[in-house]
């Protein structure tokens, strides 16, 4: 073998093997074509994580809601079929408690309903809901529906994502098309811009109309801090499993870089960041709004596993100063003790029940709630 050939031959072999690996993965771990199949194997899901956001939408969305993947319908601020109203909704003397937030908040609501039969517990949630989603959910229904108690769920990992506007940009591996407004501070006041669509019905209209979809992408580019065209746009490279993995690595690195400006494992939250300032303003405004509408506001602070009690420490001074009730999970579930958490980062059932008990105690301590019950 001559010298040049000796040098280049391995590279040709390596490329050939990589192509074989790529094809083999696509065959062995091919993702089910039917969007309604929600239980593909872990490895099938793993090799799909790197697909572009548009590619994932195309895989899970069909014009008919019944043919689409169930997760496509989750988290919409308007007309979401996934709204949970638990027990006693029509009972006259029952105080209505509405919990807004992510799945942790949903599990809390479920356990609260189990513990206290006299309360009406409602839950409005989205998978991985960020604080702005929860607040927007409250704002969108505060005029239409009165709750005696309103609970806003906020978790540590959601804070760096406050300047996102969709479940499409805030978690790359598992995306959701639901949208929510982009909040910002203008002269110290919290304001927001709404995305072009906030319901599943409108999403379908946009998704299947290239002009409208283009306009939505433009809106995302302008308003969503986490929007990235390389991750968003569907390309032919979606068909390569190796490229999908490369895109995933890129997505993670981008996400880490952006999140690092808000939260750092060693230093904690950056109080100068836009996200932290919005969060502080958001909890205060939520409380003022709720009180104006004769609701009792409570903040449910979920300290994620291995992220310490930093969210609690960040919000505590503001909450105490403005006399806002809150429940922080860090005492019952120390964030550095993984025994309190399930592998999917939710609290173990016994701890969740304890948290629900604590929340009920906070609600029951309020005279108005108690008075209504006594009627």
């Amino acid at each position, binding site marked *: 073998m001559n010298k040049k050939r000796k040098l280049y031959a391995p590279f040709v*072999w390596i490329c050939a093997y990589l192509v074989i690996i790529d094809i083999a993965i696509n065959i062995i771990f091919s993702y089910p074509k039917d969007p309604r199949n929600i239980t593909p194997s872990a490895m099938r899901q793993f090799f799909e994580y790197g697909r572009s956001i548009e590619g994932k939408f195309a895989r899970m969305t069909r014009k008919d809601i019944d043919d689409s993947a169930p997760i496509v319908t989750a988290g919409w601020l308007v007309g979401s079929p996934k709204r949970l109203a638990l027990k006693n909704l029509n009972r006259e003397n029952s105080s209505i408690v509405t919990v807004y937030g992510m799945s942790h908040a949903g599990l809390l609501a479920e356990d609260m309903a189990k513990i206290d039969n006299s309360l009406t517990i409602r839950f409005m949630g989205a998978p991985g809901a960020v604080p702005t989603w929860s607040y927007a959910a409250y704002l969108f229904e505060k005029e239409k529906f009165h709750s005696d108690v309103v609970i806003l769920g906020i978790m540590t990992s959601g804070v760096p994502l406050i300047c996102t506007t969709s479940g499409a940009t805030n978690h790359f591996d598992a995306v959701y098309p639901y949208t929510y407004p982009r909040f910002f501070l203008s002269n110290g006041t919290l304001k927001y811009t709404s995305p072009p669509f906030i319901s599943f019905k409108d999403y379908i209209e946009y998704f299947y109309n290239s002009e409208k979809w283009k306009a939505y992408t433009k809106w995302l580019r302008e308003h969503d801090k986490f929007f990235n065209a390389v991750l968003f746009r569907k390309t032919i490279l979606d068909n390569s499993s190796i490229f999908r*993995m490369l895109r*995933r690595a890129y997505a993670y690195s981008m996400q880490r870089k952006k999140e690092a400006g808000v939260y750092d494992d060693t230093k904690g939250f950056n109080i100068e960041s836009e996200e932290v300032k919005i969060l502080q303003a958001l909890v205060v405004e939520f409380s003022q709004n709720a009180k104006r509408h004769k609701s009792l506001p409570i903040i449910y602070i979920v300290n994620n596993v291995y992220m310490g009690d930093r969210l609690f420490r960040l919000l505590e001074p503001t909450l105490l100063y403005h006399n806002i009730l809150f429940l922080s999970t860090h005492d019952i579930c120390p964030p*550095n003790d*993984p025994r309190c958490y399930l592998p999917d980062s939710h609290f173990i059932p016994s701890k969740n029940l304890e948290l629900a008990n604590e929340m009920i105690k906070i609600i029951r301590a309020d005279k108005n709630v108690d008075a209504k019950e006594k009627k």
Partner: protein
Amino acid sequence: MAFNSIVFLSFFLVAYAIYRALPHKAQNIFLLIASYVFYGWWDTRFIFLIIIATCLDFTCSLIIHNGYITQRQRLTVSSWTVIGAFSFLVVQWYKLGHGLHRSQSALGQLFSWRMGWILFFIIAFLTLIMNLFYAKISLIEMQKKRKIFLIVSISGNLAILGFFKYFNFFIGNIAVVIRSLGLNPVNLHLNILLPIGISFYTFMTMSYTIDVYRGRLIPTNKLYEYALYLAFFPKILAGPIERAVNFLPQIIEKRKISSDQIMSGLHQILYGFFKKVVIADGVAKTVSNVFGATYQVSWIDAIVGILLFTFQIYCDFSGYSDIAIGTAHLFGFDLMRNFHFPYFARNPSEFWGRWHISLSSWFRDYVFFPLGGPYGSAYRWIRNILLTFFVTGLWHGAAWNYILWGLYHGIMLCVHRVKESLGIKKKRSKNPLKKIISILFFFILTSLGWVLFRSHSLGQIKAIFKVLLFDFGDLKLNVTMPTHAALLGLPLFVIIEFIGYNSHGKRLDKVLPMGVRTAVYAAMIFLIILGMANVPSTFIYFVF
């Protein structure tokens, strides 16, 4: 800049393209500049520490060898020192607005930029004084002069290392002693940031002067050649601790880059990245969960944590060494081997011939043998071994857990030598089963040793051993699992190591046929792509 970053990739590509286009002398000067840029990426002011070490040892070694330095050399050293002080202590590079200032705010606590001017004037003044006194110094008798300059070199280097690395440790321990006497010590704790790689280049520069003193090495009379030996970028941050005897001739003589060197370099870089990105970074979170736990971990947590750290530290450090050696190969340099399948060792003596070879051989040559080595009475050689391993532990960090880890290995080595001297297990068993058992047994001992190394306090060491001994059988795994890439990569890693060990360290391309080895390379590349989603971490040995 770290090897596992896009910045390094860009730096490397540009540097390599320029390097290949230059003639030999220009290559050396260019490599020196590139190395300073590489090192200064963390903080430009630390370049000055390297310049000080370079000038000090260049001067001392010439005086030790020749008895004098020429006026031209003196002028070069003096101007290098003064220009270095100005360039890296006074000039505010961070205002250029690029990555060079990343740790600026942290360092700002050590000294202000005004302090930079003061230091500059002090250094300029001292350089002037040294020049003025040179005539008197040159009159000292040769033997005496040799000894004086050896002491000056060693104490100068140790003073810099001691200040930056051990000052707070010793002050802290003295304060504990004073407090135990019922007194209230003054707080002398300084906010010192450890200059990256200081332990590595300090040992390189010390070995240079000592080798010159011992007559094993003729010093170079060109400052830039010596400066390049010390600052060569692939090895400056975490070794290998290269000896000048091996490396200087490669700088001085014209280098030819063969296709075999390129292949070997690429192979090592690929394997290094595989170990770092796939294994070390892939298990890092699980290990941190165990050793960072604020609750009592379960028995299986502890076992998993210890085992994974055993792989993590090896893959992290040897991965770095592989990338360093591979990169050097691409530039036409041969660096010494730093790891030789250490986890296949059957006893401590063999382990230290396979683990961090450049450091263990340094301590052997410059500490253990000067103390008397393995000779003399049992008391003497046991003392020599324990002292050597005490400083080996201390070299790793200014903390008691590192010292304990060093002593643990020292004690194991003493026991092994006692066993050997008593005639137990004199002959190595050829029985493969016995061989496997002894490898596994020593692997367990090594892994237990890593508990001392990784724990952040003596209390944690105690807690982990308590769990291991008394909570036996608690199989509830609480910690996060390693990443998919790590889980898929670990078996491949073990197979590659096994092939390497069985072929006495030959490269894969010398052992496996083209079709098989390229399949292994492709698998490694694929897993690296998978592993790129892992949270990238700094190389563990950067803090030593």
